[in-house]
């Protein structure tokens, strides 16, 4: 009996030691704190899109940490962080929300020294560059809100510091989704969204801060006006943009405004709309239903977005250690590969590459034709061999970013004008 206990204890310790070494975490004992003590549960607040059961299972397997998802919509994430900062242990939120979250003082700066891959996070975030080239930084570009002055600081730092606001989880460049089978001609510009040719067959998002930027892309595409910053309009610019939207709405341009992922999929798949603002995985989903749908790159560029992990100010002790362990694990490759295979981009590309097949990497990241069938995380075939990803390689896509999802200084006024647009 005694022997059995000893044996199992030793086996356990060996196992723990191995994992600890592999992770290199845990300052004194060499064990990650999470394994040295009771199993830890992290309450993960975020949108359902990023919360995958596969990731939770893998984390449990690798680190012994239990991830408990709290799935809510984007606005609700912000609301929870501000009003109930103790109801979660780690938050996955949009970078643009930081303009609300950081001044509230409920998010703590993350210690860059504890993030092993901190220096390898793509320069899209740290410098606003892709392949050494500057990309569009209108709106709340991540580089503007990536660093804090101090751990509990309420102001963003202009240059790199050791306090990071959010560690990127996913990001992408958004554009219009179209039904090539119903449009039957090439689409190359944002202005097509309001082209009367598609009267009653166009849609935009009913999320004011994003919808208005799509409208601004249209206005710039028509050459009517060039915004100094589409992501931070003056009142006059908001008026001008909303006026255009109201005219289009009264002329019957829009079939509907969509609010969530599935609505956008249904509108497109059923043929209610043929051109609309869309998210990349939604296009994939329409395609997986056997309906032709293209995530059309446009000459004016993309509207980009990014989400990342943040830690509540109140997180301390073992839970804090577990959160760092989880984030380090997240950046170590498996999760990155998992996300890249869904059409998102991951924060540290080098580690993700090691977890992907060369042909997968070539298709998703290098814009090369698929050497063999491309499979999704569930094993289903997404694209047949020979297909090329819409928009091409990582560098072409992210390099073509024109602006970022944003919270404007005149947000209150903008929301009021948006309600006016809906009522028109």
């Amino acid at each position: 009996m005694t022997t059995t206990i000893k044996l199992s204890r030793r086996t356990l310790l060996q196992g723990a030691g191995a994992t600890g070494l592999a992770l290199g975490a845990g300052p004194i004992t060499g064990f990650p704190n999470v394994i040295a003590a009771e199993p830890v549960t992290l309450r993960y607040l975020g949108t359902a899109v990023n919360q995958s059961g596969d990731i939770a299972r893998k984390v449990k397997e690798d680190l012994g940490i239990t991830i408990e998802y709290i799935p809510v919509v984007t606005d609700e994430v912000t609301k929870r962080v501000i009003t109930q900062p103790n109801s979660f242990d780690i938050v996955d939120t949009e970078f643009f929300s930081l303009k609300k979250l950081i001044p509230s003082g409920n998010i703590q700066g993350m210690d860059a020294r504890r993030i092993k891959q901190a220096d390898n996070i793509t320069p899209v975030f740290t410098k606003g560059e892709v392949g050494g080239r500057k990309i569009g930084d209108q709106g709340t570009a991540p580089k503007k809100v990536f660093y804090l002055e101090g751990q509990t600081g309420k102001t963003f730092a202009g240059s790199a510091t050791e306090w990071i606001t959010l560690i990127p989880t996913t990001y992408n460049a958004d554009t219009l989704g179209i039904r090539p089978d119903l449009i039957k001609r090439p689409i190359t510009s944002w202005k097509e969204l309001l082209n009367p040719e598609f009267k009653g067959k166009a849609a935009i998002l009913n999320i004011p801060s994003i919808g208005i930027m799509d409208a601004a892309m249209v206005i710039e595409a028509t050459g009517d006006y060039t915004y100094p910053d589409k992501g931070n309009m003056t009142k006059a610019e908001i008026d001008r943009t909303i006026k255009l939207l109201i005219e289009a709405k009264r002329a019957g341009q829009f079939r509907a405004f969509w609010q969530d992922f599935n609505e956008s999929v249904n509108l497109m798949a059923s043929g209610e709309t043929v051109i609309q603002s869309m998210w990349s995985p939604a296009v994939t989903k329409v395609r997986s239903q056997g309906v032709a749908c293209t995530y059309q790159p446009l000459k004016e560029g993309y509207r980009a977005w990014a989400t990342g992990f943040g830690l509540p100010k109140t997180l301390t002790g073992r839970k804090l250690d577990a959160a760092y362990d989880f984030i380090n694990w997240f950046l170590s490759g498996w999760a990155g590969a998992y996300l890249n295979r869904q059409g998102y981009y991951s924060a540290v590309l080098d580690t993700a590459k090691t977890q992907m097949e060369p042909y997968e990497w070539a298709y998703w990241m290098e814009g090369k034709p698929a050497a063999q069938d491309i499979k999704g995380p569930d094993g289903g075939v997404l694209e047949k061999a020979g297909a090329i990803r819409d928009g091409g390689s990582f560098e072409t896509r992210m390099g073509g970013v024109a602006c970022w999802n944003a919270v404007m200084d005149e947000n209150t006024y903008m929301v009021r004008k948006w309600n006016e647009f809906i009522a028109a």
Partner: protein
Amino acid sequence: MTDAVLATHAESPPAAAHQSLTAKTRRRRVLAYLQAAPMAFVFLVFFVVPLALTLMVSFWEYNEYEIIPAFTLQNYVDVFEGCTATTDLCTTVRTYLSTLKFCALTWAFTLVIGFTVAYFVAFHVRSKTMQMVLFLVCTIPFWTSNVIRMISWIPLLGRNGLVNDTLQGMGLISRPIEGLLYSDFSVVLAFVHLNTVFMIVPIFNSMARIDRALIEAAYDAGATGWQTLWNVVVPLAKPGIAIGSIFVVTLVMGDFVTVGVMGGQQIASVGKVIQVQMSALQLPAAAANAIVLLGAVMLMIVAMTRLIDLRKEL
């Protein structure tokens, strides 16, 4: 009651009788208060307090991430921004007009349908068992969530939906009717579908209590079917109609989900305005809108109860 009390105390001097009477009344009154207390408590905690908080917050200031205790009328000024202009209707008036339009249409349709169904079940179905069975059948659609009931219209009404496909297949139309979905039509359709039962139940209840002898008497006195309906049944079903109307009107006034889903998010409703402001964390602005909405709905209910004195009729 009073007579009985007086009779038992007839022998005692009048002063004593008066005293014991007040003591008894007082005890009874305390008991009545105690009986009402649980409900009053629930009302206080779940209705009065939240409402008072909403009213309070509607005068507060706010920024992107916090609400600031202060006293400002700015939120109300914002609600009515542009409403003094004579050339164009302001957002709030426009939104209320749109919501009132849905209210009136839904009310009219649910009333006609609800009254007809209730009349049929109450007067044309003879057996009590059958009445109950049919009455329960009316509630079957409510076994699923109202969002599902609403969404199930979409594949039916869409551009390539069942209705358009069938009509095109029969050669009645050459191109799909766009206005079936994401239009005023689809919103009213969904509202009527969702809310008719709230008319049926109270009207049926009122009708079930109408003394059949009254209807016989009307016939005996030579009234036609329509005359009986209009002069006997309708007046006696008034309390049911009033209660049903209050249900339907308040539900439609506060709705934002049905208008959103069936209107393709393109049609304004007061509830939607509040929801957009809430999700942008502009809670004081949303509170001000909620208070204005509450005022509007209360005015409508006061007007309705002016027409029918519910207390008296019940």
